[in-house]
């Protein structure tokens, strides 16, 4: 029916009383997400919007409410600890929206979550949305529609652009996932592709990559070797100069590695439909399903 999040997702919000946290929690609640708890140290005992209990620690929140997913809106300097805390409390899915987390912190966070079998999405990601069912993060609910196209992307607004075009063309989505633009992230393309391949309600996948690193190449090989469902891909940054960080910490061409050209070549070689423009997704997917 979807990947990562569904109607059984019981969401906890870390940083629920902050500016971003409170805004997006309202949005998620309006969308129908089952927000069961919030965490802000020192505000334990209060409630958010009169209904969501707030706790001092994630352990207390998980213990009292049975939360099984957490979304993190705390400032960058506290984000790594927020992930550690959620993983320590046994939360199975952690979505870190926060941008600007030091990569040194992530080198310690990633083995920690891996040891516990916890799925981390992000950091610096827009989260995930299963249209009509559950929204975790900041993806705008009004542009998505239920359907059977899986969407996975390293970007935020570029994802909105593509999803918007898919929706207008009548191509609804099973789940849309933003994996984040940082060099070190918890869930990568392959994790999402594997999940979409196993998801009964996904028939094709739209993948938006960008310059930097080799995740798209690895994803292409995974598609070639392990996927039966069609995948259409796009790479942002073919006009980006080498050695410069294009906004996302991970979007940087190092030497000759990570260019859009080599990534699109890998797509082609591995049987992924290559979208030259975001607008190409609709036609390329329609041809394949």
């Amino acid at each position, binding site marked *: 029916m979807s990947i990562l999040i569904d109607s059984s997702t019981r969401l906890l919000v870390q940083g629920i009383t902050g500016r971003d946290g409170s805004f997006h929690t309202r949005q998620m609640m309006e969308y129908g997400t089952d927000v069961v708890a919030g965490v802000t140290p020192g505000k334990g005992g209060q409630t958010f919007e009169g209904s969501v209990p707030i706790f001092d620690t994630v352990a207390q929140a998980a213990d009292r409410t049975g939360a099984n997913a957490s979304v993190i809106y705390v400032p*960058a*300097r506290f984000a790594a600890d927020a992930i550690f805390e959620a993983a320590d409390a046994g939360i199975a899915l952690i979505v870190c929206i926060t941008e*600007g*987390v*030091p*990569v*040194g912190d*992530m*080198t*310690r966070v*990633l*083995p920690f979550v891996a040891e516990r079998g916890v799925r981390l999405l992000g950091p610096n990601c*827009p989260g995930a949305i299963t249209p009509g069912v559950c929204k975790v993060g*900041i*993806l*705008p609910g*009004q*542009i998505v529609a239920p359907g059977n196209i899986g969407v996975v*992307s*390293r*970007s*935020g*607004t*570029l*994802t*909105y*652009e593509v999803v*918007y075009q898919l929706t207008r063309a009548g191509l609804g989505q099973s789940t849309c996932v933003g994996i984040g*633009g940082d*060099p*070190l992230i918890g869930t990568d393309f392959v994790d999402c592709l594997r999940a979409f391949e196993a998801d009964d309600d996904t028939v094709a996948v739209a993948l*938006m990559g*960008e*310059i930097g*690193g*080799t*995740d798209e190449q690895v994803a292409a090989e995974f598609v070639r070797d392990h996927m039966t469902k069609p995948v259409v891909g*796009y790479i*942002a*940054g*073919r*006009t*980006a*100069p080498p050695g*410069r960080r*294009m*906004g*996302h*910490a*991970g*979007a940087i061409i190092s*030497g000759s590695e990570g260019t*859009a050209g080599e990534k699109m070549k890998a797509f082609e070689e591995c049987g992924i439909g290559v979208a*030259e*423009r*975001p*607008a190409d997704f609709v036609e390329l997917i329609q041809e394949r399903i």
Partner: protein
Amino acid sequence: MNIHEYQAKEILRQHGIPVPPGEIARTPEEAERLAREYGGMTVVKAQVHAGGRGKAGGVKLAADPAAARDAAANILGMEIKGLTVDRVLVTPAVEIRSEAYVGIVLDRASQRPVFMVSAEGGVDIEEVAVTNPDAITRFAVDPRYGLLPHQSMGLAFALYDDIELARQASRIISALYDAYVAAGATLAEVNPMIVDDTGVVLAIDAKMNIDDNALFRMPEIEAMRDTEAEDPAEKKAREAGLSYIQLDGDVGCCVNGAGLAMATMDLVKYYGGSPANFLDIGGSSNPDKVVAALEIITADSNVKAILFNIFGGITRCDDVANGIVEATKRIDIALPITIRLTGTNEREAIEILQANGFTAMTDMDEVVKRGVALAAGAAGGGA
């Protein structure tokens, strides 16, 4: 963030790595004075955020203080890869018996810091990686345990058979890892690490890149930022909380989100145009950011047309619209502006823009086509 060689060396010194003395000169006279203080041969090295300084003539050996002054006079003001040299490092010359490479870099694939060492030092390691990959020994550090003593010793033995040299190199490698972690670096490199004529292992050139996201922990490293070396437009963007990179095209782009910004640039190219910049106004809806963005774009004399591509999510389209109206009141913009807004508060935004004499569209391909055409002079301005 890049820091200069002399700054990287200062960090390495603080972690106990043996580095020859050295000081910065901003004039030939200062260089002469330093060379006199050190006595003997010195090296005068351009301090600039670019590789290939040696090939560009930015590193010179000076036999005496007068030669150091001449070398500095020659190097100061030199342009290396588009950057003007405003300071040189003066350091005593060292007899070199052998040169090695020691570097540590954040590796995305293993999600760990990875050491690379090679007995072939003093040359471009990326070239060695291509021409003679077996000459490089790699080791991924497990950040949960740090670099263990036997691991730094193992890397040292890859460079030297001699136990005394290996022990010295092992201490440098361990200290380099400590410096890398403490500084929040994504790259730390000693190239070359040398053995001098007395059998001492020394770091005689150093490079470090610092993770911008880690700088909040280290004000003393943030203070090393060379704002003089920074492009003024990029500096202004950084201070306004924008992400901006100048290119050499003529279509000024103003977009929210890094991925969409790159996709917009790519689409400009796709439709036969040439993007003047990467510019991400980020997720916030602050009109001041739009004003700053327009100031930066219009300051680039290559720009012939300005193109907005906004997909409202967190960013509210009406805020951006207000920013555009506000900016055109504050600064005099002679260039044509074409605007695409979709998403949150799209309708209000279009009303605001129309009330102020702008036209706006909702399709990305359409706006890019129009922006390219405007820059090419094939259409009138939008304002």
